[in-house]
């Protein structure tokens, strides 16, 4: 019954590999950016904090698809020829960075101020205080929402197909166009996405339980 799906599987798997690479790249770069911005937004000088707040505010109010389109067209508009993946990848990194930034900033600020007072009254300077007291606890708090963001990002890679970059969703629509076996193909693609997300989902559930216990 799933004859068409089975025949198309090699092609779809190639798409899945692209999806995985795209996800890994955008999640890792976006998380790095988000950590830098989030830390700056929490403990940096006031103008820097304001800039980060504005950045996050803007990006949270825009759909990722629109940001991808902008990313796709901004380079030619400036006169540069850039690979499609680089363009949409950059757009995704900017977008994911904003969300990770908010998570990191929130986690840092959520460390109880009483502990800051205690650290200061011991004579601790800012650097050791952030390193020993704030960041370890903030990081622990940030992991569940960060994993959720990573999961969301994997799924958001499907949007790049709308802009014209080839990955699993694009491949799926090509196959459907050719074979008209829409339900079968998309069912198979759904399973593929689920498999890609599975490790993170398991890790997220595992860590949610562990974090809940610790607090």
């Amino acid at each position, binding site marked *: 019954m799933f004859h068409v799906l089975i025949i198309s599987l090699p092609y779809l798997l190639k798409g899945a590999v692209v999806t995985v690479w795209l996800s890994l790249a955008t999640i890792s770069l976006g998380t790095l950016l988000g950590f830098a911005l989030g830390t700056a937004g929490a403990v940096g000088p006031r103008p820097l904090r304001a800039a980060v707040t504005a950045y996050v505010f803007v990006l949270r109010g825009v759909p990722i698809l629109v940001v991808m389109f902008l990313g796709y067209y901004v380079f030619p508009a400036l006169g540069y020829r850039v690979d499609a993946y680089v363009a949409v990848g950059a757009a995704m990194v900017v977008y994911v960075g904003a969300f990770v930034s908010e998570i990191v900033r929130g986690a840092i600020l959520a460390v109880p101020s*009483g*502990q800051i*007072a*205690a650290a200061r*009254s011991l*004579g*601790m*300077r800012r650097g050791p205080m952030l390193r*020993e007291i704030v960041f370890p606890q903030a990081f622990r708090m940030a992991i569940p929402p960060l994993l959720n963001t990573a999961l969301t990002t994997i799924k958001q890679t499907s949007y790049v197909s709308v802009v014209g970059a080839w990955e699993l969703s694009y491949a799926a629509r090509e196959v459907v166009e050719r074979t008209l076996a829409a339900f079968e193909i998309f069912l198979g693609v759904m399973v593929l996405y689920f498999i890609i997300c599975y490790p993170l989902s398991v890790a997220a559930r595992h860590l949610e339980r562990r974090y809940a216990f610790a607090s």
Partner: protein
Amino acid sequence: MIAVKGLRKSFGPLTVLDGISFAVAAGEVVVVLGPSGSGKSTMLRCINFLEPYDEGEIRIEGELVGYREAGNGKRTPRPEGEIARFREQVGMVFQSFNLFPHRSAVENVMMGPVHVRGISRKAARETAAGLLAKVGLAEKMDEYPARLSGGQQQRVAIARALAMQPKVMLFDEVTSSLDPELVGEVLLVMRRLAQEGMTMIVVTHEIAFARDVADRIIFMDKGTIVEEGDPREVLLNPRSERLRGFVRRFTGALPES
């Protein structure tokens, strides 16, 4: 050793400290009593400059706390590094303990010596173990705060502050969050500390402790010092009506000495 003169502080329109002046000699135990909102905690936090103050001066061993005076009477805030170094000499224990939950008891006590003074972990651990033994928690040294009772956590907090070998210890209502059965163990540690000659400023509601351990009692209300003097005199013969009312409320629970 500590001299406070004309201390004033406001939070916006609210004046919390309205001209406080008092002195604490080395080795003295001063207990500060007063109703909520009288400014006791704020005053304490000004002494180690966790809060800046607007007017007046706080001097510890002659040094002005938190500010540097320019010749013409004006003053500028000291840089953060100087203030941090000054705070090494003033230990503080908080009502909500404020232990670092992701570190064990001994690691909490080691935090100051290792990350402020740069002492080796091995040496710091030995000293910390000794301090924890001193407050009666030797067997709990590798436990995490979540597994300790309130009284035990507070005793770890005291050990943590003592690890920096401060000249003064400030106690901010350290037993107010504790179950009554756990209050005694903390007060015992504080009493022993007093007997060893530590200079202490204790904000508390424990009137019996004030009567038995304090060298002097200060009664604050609405940001000013209303009465000051020998514990027994002040508590048995309060001169001001406000203090009389305050003591009367607590006298019922006052155990006989």
